[in-house]
């Protein structure tokens, strides 16, 4: 069978890869958006924290024999706690200064963290096996669907929309949105905004680590994995609009799919299509598709 002269197996195969990549774009840009909204910091350490999540899973398995499901819980907690320490000791000093300082600090931290892991583990990747419960797959007739990949897509969608719901529809989320607009006033109502900022950073970082754990069995666990991905994720964030929650989710999935389709119809452009879209969006709507000018 063919669609537009392309075999359906290839088409749906690339669509699936696009959705998988999109899942990670969405999870990571969501965390960046949450952090940027409240802290006004572009967290360049995000890729390194994603990598830390994956390494955490790898080390838990190698050193302690704790498998994937444990890692899904433990890695975000550990890496999130590390994020909290970073916020309390370093980022906190920068809120009154220009954006640029936060960017430089987080960029520097990313280089340090990646450097340490490259030293320790080399640049080549370590494999991480798919957990037995999610091994195998189903033949859907028009394509073969590996169970683990289906799980990653479903889990990402649930996490993304769960986070969206938490922020846009709950009381806790209303504190977060209000503090994003006017932190001084929210604090003067009796809410401990500095603590909220710390926990928000921890949450955003934990999301990155969670994505890292889920990525382990798909990509390899390597010190470079975050650095490669984060460049694309920043493009996604720029396209979606800095700080918009729904924007980062939809743009993440959308661009993943667009990238997959480009691979089918015009493979030469598949690595650049996101950046082309970014340039076009910046020309037409500088605040991003879902963003509002700050």
């Amino acid at each position: 069978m063919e669609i537009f002269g392309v075999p359906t197996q290839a088409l749906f195969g690339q669509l699936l890869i696009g959705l998988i990549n999109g899942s990670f774009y969405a999870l990571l840009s969501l965390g960046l958006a949450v952090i940027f909204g409240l802290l006004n910091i572009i967290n360049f350490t995000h890729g390194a924290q994603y990598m830390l999540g994956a390494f955490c899973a790898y080390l838990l398995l190698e050193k302690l024999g704790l498998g994937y499901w444990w890692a899904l819980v433990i890695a975000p907690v550990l890496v999130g706690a590390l994020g909290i320490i970073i916020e309390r000791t370093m980022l906190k000093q920068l809120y009154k200064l220009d954006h640029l300082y936060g960017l430089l600090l987080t960029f520097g931290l990313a280089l340090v963290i990646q450097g340490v892991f490259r030293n320790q583990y080399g640049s080549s990747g370590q494999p991480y096996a798919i957990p037995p419960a999610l091994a195998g797959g189903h033949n859907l007739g028009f394509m073969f669907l590996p169970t683990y990949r289906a799980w990653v897509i479903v889990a990402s969608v649930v996490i993304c929309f769960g986070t969206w719901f938490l922020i846009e529809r709950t009381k806790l989320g209303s504190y977060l949105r209000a503090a994003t607009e006017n932190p001084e006033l929210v604090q003067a109502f009796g809410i401990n905004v500095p603590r909220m900022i710390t926990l928000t950073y921890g949450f955003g970082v934990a999301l990155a680590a969670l994505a890292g754990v889920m990525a382990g069995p798909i990509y390899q666990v390597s010190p470079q994995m975050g650095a490669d991905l984060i460049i694309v994720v920043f493009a996604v964030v720029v396209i979606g609009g800095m700080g918009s929650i729904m924007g980062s989710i939809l743009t993440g999935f959308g661009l993943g799919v667009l990238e997959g389709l480009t691979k089918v119809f015009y493979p030469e452009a598949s690595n650049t299509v996101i950046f082309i879209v970014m340039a076009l969006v910046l020309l037409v709507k500088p605040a991003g598709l879902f963003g509002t000018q700050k």
Partner: protein
Amino acid sequence: MGEILLAIKNLNAWYGESHILHGMDFEVREGEVVTLLGRNGAGKTTTLKSIMGMVGKRQGSVLFRNRELIHLASNRIARQGIAFCPEERGIFASLDVEENLLLPPQVAAGGLGLEQIYELFPNLKERLRSQGTKLSGGEQQMLAIGRILRTGAQLLLLDEPTEGLAPVIVQQIGRTIERLKKEGFTILLVEQNFRFAQKLADRHYIVEHGRVVEMVPGAALEANMHRVHEYLGV
């Protein structure tokens, strides 16, 4: 006369390098409505923000129920039972009217219930699902006042609640303040419109260059009108 609820002594405040308050002294007793009058830039808003802990640097003393607040963070100050309604109203655009109304947490028992707030401001009840900043100026002011009435705070700091509003709305806000006074709230009110303030307040403090230069009892405002006019430059 009630007990002293709030006592400000030699209060100094800075925004960065600029020294704005130069030793404010005044007090507010339980159940009173007290106003701060003064020209633009005299330091009235800064006084309220200093009480709330919202300026960079403060010195001196802010006693609330005999407890020193000068070193507390603003969230802790609010939890003592003080609520602030800012001059620019501070309605959140990313929250709907109901979320705005429910945002400030309860800090003590004894706040008004939602039904009582809707009774004071019926407009709000009809607009609960609207985006906060889509309300008219007057409605936003009602929302800004309404949301702090729920908290159970006993001392309300209101910064120019009538600024830029139509006479009917100004009257409605005046009636609300009278009603709140009857319910036992204590109110520190910043006003430019002293005809409005005159009818409500037990006492007026005139602020100039970050100091209190004169205290005028409510009843004596009329008799001192010429001096007040001089201070306020009207």
